[in-house]
């Protein structure tokens, strides 16, 4: 058994080990389209954030160039491709810089909630008893509550409502984290409770392994299977919560960082007088970023769930799929149909038991 896995692993081609490559290969039609669109949009979003200093024509808080002020509410022109805001900032620059703020917030909040959620979930699920019951009730209560309101309360607590770049990002991230912890907690706790009664955990107990080692080595590794999906879906929610907080005036000061929700708030009165460029572009940026991440997460979710996974052309029509022919390495470890894959894993489990 160990010998066969050792042999099959090196066989996987280099290309197939690129993240997401396998998913793109195993998808068809609409699903593949959605996945690729998600990857492309998310990629552009991330690249924009990383290269914001190079891409943006001006700084996010810049009001004048060469000594002359930009002017407020200027329509899109050659100098300012997307116009200027009521505060006299360049819209294009703020949209580009906003990607950086958004990514930072997503990363910080997701990392924080993963750590806190996983830890609480593992402890609660493994130890059980009254601690488990209390945590479940608390998390359920938080889960049922409007997340934006909770985020508002948290941001009052953390920053008193207004702050600089890192304070602001941290405040927004922690606010979002508190909202997300129950979700990670639920998933990890359920998995932990299930895994706790597995034979290998019991064997580990029998040979005298200490609880922390069991939890982090045996349980954690097997409990995190569904996390990547939750993670992408939460990233988009984090972005929306950040924008919502910014829109309510709890964002980051315009001089500290560019934030799309804040810009939309400031454009509220512009709309009434027919000024469209100050609201349209930051709004589109939010929509695109959330759309990209959601498409990515959704398609990964569908591909991981056999009931939602589109039937592959090979199984549907009996004809070989074009990518099966084009991929020379695909035959062994990767290229076979889902049915065969499932059968082989079932085989493995049988042999283990």
């Amino acid at each position: 058994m160990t010998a066969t896995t050792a042999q099959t692993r090196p066989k996987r081609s280099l290309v197939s080990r690129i993240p997401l490559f396998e998913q793109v290969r195993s998808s068809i039609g609409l699903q593949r389209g959605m996945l690729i669109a998600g990857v492309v949009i998310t990629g552009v979003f991330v690249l924009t954030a990383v290269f914001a200093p190079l891409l943006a024509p001006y700084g996010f808080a810049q009001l004048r160039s060469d000594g002359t002020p930009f002017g407020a509410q200027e329509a899109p022109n050659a100098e300012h491709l997307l116009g200027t805001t009521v505060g006299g900032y360049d819209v294009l620059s703020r949209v580009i810089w906003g990607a950086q703020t958004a990514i930072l917030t997503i990363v910080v909040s997701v990392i924080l909630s993963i750590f806190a959620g996983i830890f609480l979930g593992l402890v609660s699920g493994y130890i059980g008893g009254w601690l488990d019951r209390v945590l479940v009730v608390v998390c359920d209560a938080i889960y049922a509550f409007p997340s934006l309101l909770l985020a508002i309360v948290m941001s009052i607590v953390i920053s008193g409502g207004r702050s600089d770049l890192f304070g602001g990002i941290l405040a927004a991230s922690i606010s979002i984290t508190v909202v997300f912890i129950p979700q990670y907690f639920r998933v990890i706790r359920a998995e932990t409770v299930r895994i706790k009664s597995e034979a290998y955990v019991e064997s580990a107990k029998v040979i005298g392994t200490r609880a922390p080692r069991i939890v982090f080595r045996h349980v954690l590794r097997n409990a995190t299977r569904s996390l990547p999906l939750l993670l992408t879906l939460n990233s988009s929610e984090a972005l929306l919560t950040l924008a919502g907080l910014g829109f309510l005036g709890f964002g980051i000061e315009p001089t500290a960082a560019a934030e799309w929700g804040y810009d939309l708030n400031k454009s509220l009165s512009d709309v009434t007088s027919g000024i469209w460029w100050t609201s349209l572009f930051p709004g589109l940026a939010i929509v695109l970023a959330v759309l990209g991440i959601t498409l990515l997460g959704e398609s990964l979710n569908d591909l991981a769930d056999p009931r939602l996974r589109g039937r592959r052309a090979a199984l549907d029509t009996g004809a070989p799929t074009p990518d099966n022919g084009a991929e020379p390495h695909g035959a062994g470890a990767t290229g076979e149909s889902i049915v065969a894959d499932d059968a082989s894993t079932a085989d493995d489990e049988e042999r283990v038991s």
Partner: protein
Amino acid sequence: MTAELSSPDPASAAPPAVLRRRSSSGGGGLGRYILVRFLLIIPTVFILVTLVFLLMRTTGDPITAALGGKLTGPQLQERIHEAGYDRPLIVQYLEYLGNIVTGNFGSTLSDNRPVTQVLLTYGGATLELAFYALIVAFIVGIPLGMVAAYFRDRAPDAFLRIFAILCYATPVFFAGLLLKLVFAVWLQVLPVAGRASTGAELQMQFLQSKTGIYLIDALQTGNPEVIGDVLSHAVLPGVALGLLTAGVFLRLVRTNLIGTLGTDYVDSARSRGVTEFRLVRKHAYRPALIPIITVIGLQIALLLGGAVLTETTFEWKGLGFQLAHYLQARDFVAVQGIVALLAVIVAVTNFIVDIIAALIDPRVRY
């Protein structure tokens, strides 16, 4: 292999025994279920109220937050002492809990009104907005979900799924701004903001039985112009907030219909010659509706959060608008009161939705 797999029989024999016991005792389960669900409201509200209290109080006292720059040090101290914010936290907490039990959620600092009165004045508006949004969500989400399920994996389905994701991906305030821009500013067919024009508000002002829910008040005046005015103000906010929920409904209906469309009884109905329309509308749709009712409970939280943003966008003077106003004024007593009150509302609506779901589907009771 198979013999080995089926060997842990004693373990797998346990669950049926448990099930049997449960089903025999749960004969009259509905009453017990309602009682248990009702009792669960108490810890939920208690936890949220405690959480909000502790969190808000860790930032310091609300008087310094609201009036910090405006008063001198001694004046501040005096105000803090008067309001009792210099007492031990546990005393304040117990007093706060006691007040909440008697329905007193505190008074706002900035305009000194009881929070419950704020709720009575503005709650109607939020309720009205949520009602419009739910109507839009049902009208848009459910039929489109049926279409998407019926055309599974074909062009209409692809289009509708992307539409649903767009509904989710568009923040309500951005959707609101776009709708405003197109319909109120460029086409000028609908009002920009507010709940009614001044004339209509004046007419409703002198009603004997004013409800604060403009639709009901407008109907009471019996003046078609007032009714039209109120409804035209409701269109854009209702659509902006409704689309958010419509996307969720669309996906739910789609997924559940796909499930029921694949069942044997639908196949057998089709073989008897039932038309495709009737098949979707009658046979597959009804069972698919149950999960939707359950999910509406979770949507209430989403709707309330969305209402805060929608109301700010459209200057719709409801609870959310008021909450944003108090936030800006840094009146954290008001914020705490409104948030605690909303926690109660969310818990109670979830309870009602759960009971409705249990009445419709016996499997929900446990």
